[in-house]
């Protein structure tokens, strides 16, 4: 039988550091059954068959917070073989309060007196022997951060667990209380195991609901106990819970007065005090806060985070990537490229010399052949080829009407009519990748086309240390074992499984960066100050000061935002923050905004930013409305929070913290995403006869199962203006990844002259009611596009974020509540946009749609502005 040792103590007392120290970092992280409180255990380093169980950081064993209940249940029901009670030596009074409660459990216990290095540095002295004697249990001085005394502590805990030696109970309570407790012990000793008799007696004296519930005593006994409690309460003129708490603290005070000698520190502030004086200063606090947050945002969202996400998505899970800065570096460029460049340079120099000799101006600059230049040139050539081929096919079909569709069916494009080809000219439109705006246009002739056909796809491995992407590596392997491109299995593995896993891991680097920051801020003590500074604003709409960080991270990506809520201890605050954080438009949603603005509101600098304001408004009013619902109103979270002393966190601790959370994300969100991606892949890649289609073409999308499912549900989006299958499929595909909406729209848009944006404009114009004046129709298209945009922005986030939300909510019920709420909000806002939009701007008048929208608006206003309802039964 293996031995179990539990690690218990206050929050911020170095418990995690000690745990990592004692286990050497190999641990299993999970949740306590039924709750979202993290459960962590590991093997004690240097011993066989001894499990160290980390318990949540708690201040007391009262029955109110989730962490306390979980800890109590574990200690009382599972009874570990020994407890290591970690006590912060610099904050000994409050820490020993928990100790007095743990001692009542009758479990062998050793106190690890942590931060002894700091105690000595501060010039304080703690008499270990006196302390041990007064508490009736072993005390070991340690410094978890520096690792001092940890080995001895482990050895002591193990020997205590083997010997099962329990110390004597200290005399914590006064005579009157002990008298009542003795009476209670006597009345319940038949019902309770003798080991936990005193623990239950004290709890019953306190009228602890959880303990009463558990024992389920007959009525005559409870009445008898009540008599003793009331007697004692009358004698001491206080309620029993206060009596116990007061006497515990009084006892701790007595013990510390004997054993601890604090150095007098008049006006001599500690370093932590000095830092705090500046950091939460009335004037400086907000500017410092802004700088810290800006820095975090800049690193994790604007710069490094985005680079890493792009690298992971487009490189590792895309075509491939050049290893760390080796692209075009001299060391890794192939010989043939170098030779070509040397020859080109020679030729250039010769031309330059000739020009100078002739007295001509020479302003050219030498441009060597690089990966960027050749890959750019290849992409441009491909674009011109495509454009020209489309124009040629059109011209060919006009000239030979009988041959319509002929060219389409063929695998390879072929120019049959050279005479015609020579007359065909097309305009290639180059769009900016980010904004979708037109960058420049080029005319493509037949000569140019033939020229472009010669451009070969450059080989990236010639230009640096090229590492192929996971899909091409796995594709290569599959090919070797006889599964070839185009077969069903190949497509399932590459487009379904690898792509699905890729979306999960694509976000991982950025998530790790965000977690690194959060772990650092938490461990150094600043996170508590963030809550302190922001509480005033956020509690007005039912959130905690700590909700600020997830909301901010949410502007980058909703997935790390949801994960960042792990820093919020209060469960209701945390759930509400998860529910609301993804309404802040994330980076991927910017692509949707960019496309709709470029197509319908060109040059507008109002529409884009207004989406952020709508997001913030949803958070504020959503918070207010939710706070008034029965589910969230119940327990108003008291804000009684410790502001721990600042200290420089251990790097190892920060990394372990980050890694644990990253791993939890990859495993938990990963499994859901994995399944969902395969299902979606199936629906997009097959028709009802299970023929494999190409979901990257409009034809493929028109035949797939998803199209028919979209068609069946199109009526849902009718009131929002875009109730046809294209709108529905675009909305559904946006759930895979938000930026996918733009790609799908581009794919589904009718093929018209003038590029993608023109096509999208036509697509939305087709959704407007028939028989409208052209000007009104254009206006309708604008309003429908706007409605489509807000619907996608404020609908549930992408699948990865939904999966993360689902897991972090901790139960299916809460996952459904979150998705349901988000569906409702997105739908309502799009409904308002369309119905009120056409009424106000397109002169549609008041019809059934408008009346429904007005009724919904009234209902929404009611839920926001109604007075706080009273929920009696919840309080109970």
């Amino acid at each position, binding site marked *: 039988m293996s031995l179990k040792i539990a690690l218990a103590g206050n929050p911020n007392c170095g418990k995690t550091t000690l745990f990592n120290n004692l286990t050497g970092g190999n641990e299993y992280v999970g949740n306590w059954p039924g709750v979202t409180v993290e459960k962590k255990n590991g093997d004690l380093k240097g011993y066989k068959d001894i499990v160290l169980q980390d318990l949540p950081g708690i201040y007391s064993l009262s029955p*109110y917070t989730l962490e306390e209940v979980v800890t109590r249940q574990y200690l009382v029901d599972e009874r570990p073989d020994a407890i290591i009670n970690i006590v912060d030596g610099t904050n000994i009074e409050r820490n020993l309060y928990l100790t007095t409660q743990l001692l009542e459990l009758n479990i062998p216990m050793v106190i690890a007196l942590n931060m002894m290095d700091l105690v000595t540095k501060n010039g304080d002295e703690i008499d270990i022997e006196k302390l041990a004697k007064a508490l009736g249990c072993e005390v070991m001085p340690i410094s978890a951060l520096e690792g001092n005394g940890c080995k001895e502590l482990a050895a002591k805990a193990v020997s205590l667990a083997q010997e099962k030696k329990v110390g004597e109970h200290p005399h914590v309570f006064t005579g009157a209380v002990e008298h009542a407790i003795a009476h209670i012990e006597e009345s319940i000793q038949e019902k309770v195991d003798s080991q936990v008799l005193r623990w239950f007696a004290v709890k019953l004296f306190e009228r602890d609901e959880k303990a009463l519930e558990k024992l389920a005593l007959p009525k005559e006994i409870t009445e008898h106990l009540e008599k003793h409690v009331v007697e004692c309460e009358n004698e001491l003129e206080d309620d029993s819970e206060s009596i116990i708490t007061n006497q515990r603290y009084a006892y701790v005070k007595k013990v510390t007065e004997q054993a601890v000698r604090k150095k007098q520190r008049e006006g001599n502030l500690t370093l932590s005090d000095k830092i705090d004086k500046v950091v939460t200063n009335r004037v400086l606090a907000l500017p410092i806060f802004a700088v810290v947050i800006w820095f975090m945002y800049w690193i994790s969202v604007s710069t490094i985070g985005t680079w890493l996400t792009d690298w992971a998505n487009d490189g590792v899970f895309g075509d491939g990537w050049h290893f760390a800065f080796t692209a075009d570096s001299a060391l890794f460029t192939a010989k043939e490229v170098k030779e070509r460049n040397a020859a080109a340079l020679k030729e250039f120099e010769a031309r330059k010399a000739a020009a100078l000799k002739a007295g001509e101006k020479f302003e050219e600059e030498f441009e060597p052949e690089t990966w960027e230049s050749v890959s750019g040139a290849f992409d441009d050539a491909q674009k011109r080829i495509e454009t020209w081929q489309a124009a040629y096919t059109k011209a060919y079909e006009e000239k030979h009407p009988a041959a319509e569709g002929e060219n389409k069916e063929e695998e390879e494009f072929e120019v049959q009519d050279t005479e015609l080809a020579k007359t065909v000219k097309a305009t290639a439109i180059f769009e900016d990748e980010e904004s979708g705006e037109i960058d420049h246009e080029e005319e493509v002739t037949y000569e140019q086309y033939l020229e472009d056909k010669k451009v070969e796809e450059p080989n990236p491995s010639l230009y640096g240390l090229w590492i192929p992407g996971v899909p091409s590596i796995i594709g290569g392997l599959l090919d070797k074992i006889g599964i070839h491109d185009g077969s069903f299995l190949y497509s399932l593995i590459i487009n379904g499984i690898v792509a699905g896993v890729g979306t999960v891991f694509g976000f991982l680097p950025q998530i790790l960066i965000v977690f690194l920051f959060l772990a650092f801020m938490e461990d150094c003590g600043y996170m508590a100050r963030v809550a302190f500074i922001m*509480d*005033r604003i956020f509690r007005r709409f039912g959130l905690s000061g700590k909700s600020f960080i997830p909301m901010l991270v949410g502007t980058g990506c909703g997935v790390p935002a949801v994960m960042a809520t792990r820093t919020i201890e209060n469960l209701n605050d945390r759930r509400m923050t998860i529910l609301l954080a993804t309404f802040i438009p994330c980076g991927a949603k910017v692509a949707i905004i960019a496309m709709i603005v470029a197509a319908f509101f060109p040059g507008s600098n109002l529409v884009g930013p207004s989406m952020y304001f709508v997001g913030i408004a949803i958070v504020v009013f959503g918070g207010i409305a939710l706070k008034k619902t029965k589910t969230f109103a119940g327990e108003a979270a008291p804000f009684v929070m410790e502001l721990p002393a600042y200290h420089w966190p251990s790097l190892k601790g920060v990394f372990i913290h980050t890694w644990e959370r990253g791993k939890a994300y990859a495993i938990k969100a990963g499994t859901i995403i994995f399944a969902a991606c395969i299902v979606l892949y199936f629906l997009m890649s097959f028709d009802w006869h299970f023929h494999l289609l190409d979901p990257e073409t409009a034809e493929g999308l028109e035949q797939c199962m998803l199209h028919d499912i979209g068609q069946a549900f199109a009526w849902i989006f009718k009131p929002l203006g875009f109730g046809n299958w294209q709108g529905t499929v675009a909305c559904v595909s946006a759930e895979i990844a938000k930026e996918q909406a733009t790609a799908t729209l581009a794919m589904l848009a009718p093929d018209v002259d003038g590029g993608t944006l023109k096509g999208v404009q036509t697509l939305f114009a087709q959704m407007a009611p028939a028989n409208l004046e052209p000007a009104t129709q254009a206006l309708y298209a604008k309003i429908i596009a706007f409605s489509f945009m807000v619907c996608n922005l404020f609908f549930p986030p992408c699948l990865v974020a939904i999966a993360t939300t689902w897991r972090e909510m901790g139960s299916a019920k809460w996952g459904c509540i979150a998705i349901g709420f988000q569906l409702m909000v997105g739908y309502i806002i799009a409904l308002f946009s369309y119905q009120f939009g056409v009424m106000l701007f397109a002169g549609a008048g008041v019809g059934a749609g408008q009346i429904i929208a007005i009724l919904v608006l009234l209902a929404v206003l009611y839920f926001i502005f109604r007075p706080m309802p009273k929920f009696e039964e919840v309080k109970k």
Partner: protein
Amino acid sequence: MKTLKDVAVGESAVVKRLQCTGPLKRRIMDMGLTKGTEVFVRKVAPLGDPLELTVRGYELSIRKAEAEAIEVEEK
């Protein structure tokens, strides 16, 4: 009747009675704000709420709404 909310920043007071009940009362007591404890009001957050206190040698933050439920007396 004076409550902790009325104590000026930089002043100390002694806890006399807790007027709240249930989990909030227990939480306040668990954090060491029991009858007879000396409390020092260190500062107010930049936006005017919550308060930062020094109790039993450590820093504790509570909202003014909660401070109002803690009856205090002069030292």
